[in-house]
Structure formats: C-alpha cells, structure tokens
C-alpha cells in the first residue's frame, strides 16, 4: 500500500473531510490515467461541496475541462 493510500485511509477513518479534499487532489495529480484522475477529482469535489470549501470552484473547473461535470 502506498503512502498516499495509507493517508487516505487514515483521513477516512478520522472522517477528516478537509484532509480528504487535499489527498484526493494529490491522488488525481499523480494518477496514471484520465479516468483515475476524474475519479479522484470527483471525490475531492464532492467533499469540497459538502464543506463549502474554497477549492470547489477550481475542482469543478478541472472536471468541466475534462467533460466530467
């Protein structure tokens, strides 16, 4: 299991949604396929929406550019 996987699991375990946004963005940035990147960005976007986090607009813009929202 990668270090990122472990940090994601820990953040889920702690229900730390703020951390999850950052970790899913990190996962998207290091993903090896566009589908995987879209998957991770979607999760980051959903948690950002839920928290009214300032990153939601940028995440939506990225997903929009990929034709995924």
């Amino acid at each position: 299991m990668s270090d990122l996987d472990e940090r994601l699991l820990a953040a889920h375990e702690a229900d730390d949604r703020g951390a999850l946004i950052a970790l899913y963005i990190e996962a998207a940035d290091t993903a090896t396929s566009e589908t995987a990147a879209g998957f991770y960005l979607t999760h980051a976007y959903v948690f950002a929406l839920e928290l009214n986090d300032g990153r939601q607009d940028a995440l939506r813009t990225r997903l929009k550019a990929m034709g995924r929202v």
Partner: protein
Amino acid sequence: MTTDLSTVIRPIDSANGLPNAHYTDPEVFAEEREGVIFDQWAGLAVAADVPEAGDAKPVELLGVPLLLIRDKGGQVRVFHNICRHRGMILVSEPRKIEGAIRCPYHSWCYSTQGRLVATPHVGGPGMNTHEDIDKSDLGLVEVPSHIWRDVVFVNLNGNAAPFEDVHADLLQRWYEFDSPHHHGGADSRFQLDVKTNWKLAVENYCESYHLPWVHPGLNSYSRLEDHYHIEKPGQYSGQGTYVYRQLKADSGEVFPDFPGLSDKWNEGAEYVAVFPNVLLGAQRDHAFAIILEPRGLDETSEHIHLYYASEKTDDALRARNTAQWKEVFEEDVFVVEGMQKGRHAPGFDGGRFSPAMDGPTHLFHAWVAEKLHDRREKLAAE
C-alpha cells in the same frame, strides 16, 4: 372500517363525541393521518429549532421522514429527508450543513434550497453526468410550509388552501401580536410524552370547564366565570380569560409586554387550538406554542415552547415561568391518559357534551368529522 359520524355533527345539545374507533382502531388512525393531518396545515416543529443558516434537523410526522432546514438565504424549508437516488435518509441527526447536503450512500449532493448539485460517478467512474439524469428534475421534494408565531406548519399532501386563507380569521383576531416573538431558549422548551391519542390533548386544551377541578391552583384568581368560549366552526376553538395575571419576581419585575397591544390584553389572554395539532397561548408578556406530535394511536409527544417580547429576559423569572406552565400541563396528563383508557369501554357512545360548557370541544369533534367526511366523499368520487 368506516365510522358513523352522523351523531357527531348534530347540534351540541344532542351530539355525541367521536366514536371509540377514533381512539383505538389502527384503520381509523390511518384514515385520520391522511384526512385530518396530511390534508391540513399541521404543526411540525418551531423555527427556533434551526436558528442559523445551514441548521438542519430531521423530524418525522407520523412516519414520514422530513428535514427541517434554514437555507443559506435564511428561509426555513421542509423537505422529504430522502435522496432522489435510492431513497436513503439524508440527515440522521441535527447538524449544521456547511455547504451541500451529501447523501451518505452514493454522495449525491443537494444545496440547502434543495437543488441537486452533484451526482458523482452517475455516468461511470469519474463521470458525473449522464444524459438521462436531469439534475433540474431531481431536487429534494419540498413540502409546503408556513411559519406563524414561530410554528412551522406543513401541508404534507400539498392540497390545502394557503395558510393565510385557512386561518384568516385567527390571524385577524390576534393581529395585535404580530410583533417578534423570541424563543426563551433551552430553559423555555420541554416535552411531555403522554399515553393518549393526540386528539384528547386538543379536546382538553380548548375548554375551560375542567379548570377548577384539574387546576385548582387557578381558582384563587381565575374562576370559571372569568372565562369565555372561543368558537369558530370549521376553523378553531379555545378559551379566553378576563383575569390574566402576570408573573412577578420578588422585586416586582415582570416580563416586558409585546408592543402596541390594546387595553383588552391588560388582563385578557386567549388559548386557542389551531386544528389539527397546535395549541397556542397569547398573553401580554409571553406566549407559548404546543405542538402535539402523534406518535401512535395512544402515544403523543407534547412539545412546549415559550416566547417573549424581548430577546433578553430575566433568567430566574423565565425559569419560574417554565416551571409554572410545566406544572399546569402535567396536571392535565392524568385526564388525557384516563380518557384514552376510557375509550376501550365497549359501547361507549362518544359521550355527551355540556351544551353550556363544551362548545369548543364539540366544535373540534365536528371539525374532525367534517374533514373525514370530505375525504370519504372525495375517495368515493374517484
């Protein structure tokens, strides 16, 4: 089972109360659930339950899961508390919605105004749209609601006339109290769980006949002859007093009055049952609302809230006021529980009314009968 309501709608001098089945039969309870609660403007909660934007509270009305929420614009709304995807419960405990309401199942997200804003992976992994899923058609189902005197009324079946029309007469009657009512806070709310059908709490509340017997503490200053009936057939009923006495601290301090009241309220006060399930009190210096939550045929939770003319009131006096009302309402518990048990006596004819003293109670029975009659006629025509 279809009950015979013909004796209920007779003039009071020859009428009987509602038949036993209205207190003991699950089929009739289900009929009343639709015709007397869901078709009407029923009390659900108070707006003070969600004081700040984003506050959300799950509530149930006779098994229907609802979400009371104050949206980001400050408007109180009521939604079905379920996701439009798989019907999952969205919010399971009172909490603040920071941004969107996220369904805990597949994470569909809704704005606090009910708009569906995200459908993650709905078109496959990482694909958040699908041509057959039109988000604009899939917002949360909003229930018509109206706030009056901080009480959130809902018309679950969405078929009632506007609240202001249905209750135009009562709104006019109490127009002098159209000033801000401030909830007294945590020490000004309490709940009584009572083993009775909710209607018996209404019946007891709207008449003054029982006061000298059940509330003897009132006798010293509030005699039976100091009260009058409030009777608006087909709308509401209750009782009024000419001798309302303000609570005073040892220092002589009283609660401030609601502004702009005429002299009639100096010693006058009124207590009205807003059918079906809200009991209100209007007095010069404080008000209360009781929401009767029907939890079953013979289970009712009474949610009591006290309100004042100003945001800040004396803590000790407020606590005394809550205690005083709690004592009064607890004195009624054995009565409404006793009548509920009494309804299991076979052959009881619903009881007779005092033509002089029971007008408000008969009026409520007749209202229930009328609403059920309307529903039966409608179903028969379909």
